[in-house]
């Protein structure tokens, strides 16, 4: 599809008799330049490309959505986060084993549902802001800081960043779980679920959650709720990842905690023609020649600008 985008852009240029830089310059001059983060300069260009694509009957690439089941709960000594691992492109599974539990800080992780790129980049941005803040304040990040940074950014973009997040972590004030919606609204709860499989997962939570659960019970409840999403929601599937963040500062990130959908048995079940597996020695070696490749070490002077 890259070739198709190039030809569309060329035809757009020919029509408008202007270069891409002129178009973006004209947009840039109207809007104040953003400091870091997202830039929406290409919205105009993308709309032009979409209109051209409609005329020439070509298919544009789609943003990958994480169908998703993500959950978080508070237990006696911390929080447990859980997520499935399926990333979908409409009805196709784009990635069977993607990571939806994103690192924010040593004491905080964030599960993301919605557009995969949006959740990934938003959490990365806030994670770097938190790291800079830790350097400036010489103290561990608080969950409410990440929560506020995330909700302000999402509200600023009025829902165009499609990221629904379950934020969980432990700080000086105790264990916390927050839910953050794409439009910027938030809630603080003892247990929460989000994503297309949230209804299935919430039914398990509502039946099983109690205050001050032990760690093994809490992790088992999270596993059951994610599996409820995996098996009952078409947008969720494959494996269950869990992440336990404890008040004492330790974190147990279990990638592939439960893998009820192994792919290898399916692959093994496909019978290949024996002609496709070629054993070593099938092609006769007529002659062998070894030649040394000359390598010279050169001294390079680094000149300071």
């Amino acid at each position: 599809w890259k070739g198709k985008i190039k030809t569309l852009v060329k035809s757009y240029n020919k029509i408008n008799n202007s270069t891409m830089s002129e178009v973006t310059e004209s947009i840039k001059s109207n809007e104040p330049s953003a400091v870091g983060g997202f830039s929406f300069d290409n919205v105009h260009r993308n709309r032009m490309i979409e209109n051209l694509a409609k005329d020439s009957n070509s298919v544009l690439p789609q943003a990958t959505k994480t169908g998703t089941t993500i959950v978080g709960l508070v237990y006696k000594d911390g929080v447990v986060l859980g997520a499935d691992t399926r990333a979908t492109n409409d009805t196709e599974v784009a990635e069977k084993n993607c990571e939806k539990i994103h690192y924010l800080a040593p004491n905080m992780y964030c599960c993301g549902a919605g557009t995969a790129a949006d959740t990934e980049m938003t959490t990365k941005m806030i994670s770097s802001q938190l790291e800079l803040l830790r350097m400036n304040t010489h103290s561990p990040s608080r969950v409410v800081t990440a929560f506020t940074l995330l909700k302000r950014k999402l509200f600023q973009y009025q829902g165009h960043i499609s990221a629904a997040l379950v934020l969980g972590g432990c700080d000086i004030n105790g264990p916390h779980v927050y839910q953050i919606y794409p439009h910027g609204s938030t809630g603080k709860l003892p247990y929460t679920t989000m994503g297309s499989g949230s209804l299935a997962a919430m039914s398990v939570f509502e039946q099983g959650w109690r205050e001050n659960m032990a760690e093994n019970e809490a992790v088992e409840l999270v596993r059951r709720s994610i599996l409820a999403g995996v098996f009952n929601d078409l947008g969720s599937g494959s494996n269950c990842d869990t992440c336990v963040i404890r008040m004492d500062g330790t974190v147990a990130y279990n990638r592939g905690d439960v893998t009820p959908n192994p792919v290898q048995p399916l692959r093994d079940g496909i019978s290949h023609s024996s002609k496709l597996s070629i054993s070593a020695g099938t092609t006769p070696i007529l002659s062998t020649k070894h030649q040394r490749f000359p390598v010279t070490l050169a001294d390079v002077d680094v000149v300071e600008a």
Partner: protein
Amino acid sequence: MTSVINNPLDYSSKLKKGEVSTGTTIMAIPFDGGVVLGADSRVSTGVYIANRVSDKIAQISEHIFVCRSGSAADTQALTDYVKYYLSQLSIETGRPPLVKVAAHLMRQLCYENKNNLMAGVIVGGWDPVHGGQVYNIPLGGTIMQMPFAIGGSGSTYIYGLVDASFQENMSAEDARALVKKAISHAMARDGSSGGIIRTVVVRAEGNDRDYTPGNQLPYGPAGW
């Protein structure tokens, strides 16, 4: 950032697709020496309840609270802005802020941004100058000081009840009982209201936060 240009004559700004709404019933009644605020706790996205125990009574100053209804994101952001402006103001003036000032700050934000917001709020509080006051700020940014205020989608079902039961110069306990009764009735009839009833009694001496669980409401469907 380019945005979709709406029809300028379309005043009814609806919730965007997937946006979270505080469906809601909110209420506030002033009494001699303070004010009682009450709200349900249901937050919905479409027909799914995103949060069944949310807190819609936000504190913006020591003795001033805001009941939120409409878009959850918009009202949370508005509350944060007003809280910030009020704290700056109280540092600059050296006094606790007046409820009238808080209400007018809220009204200014709601009115100036009426095309992009969907927020109906009730500002209620106590200050040493005018005592307990309640200001109703519905969609669009009108401000009205009232002897009692109700708002949100569930309020339409209890206008008659509140008009008949309200009396001037009620005590704090009577006001609180009326708030709980009215909100229970609204929760019984409005699908977007439910959960628990949260109440806050604001007085000079201090505030009293309380909640009534959903199965102990003064009025509810038979069989609870």
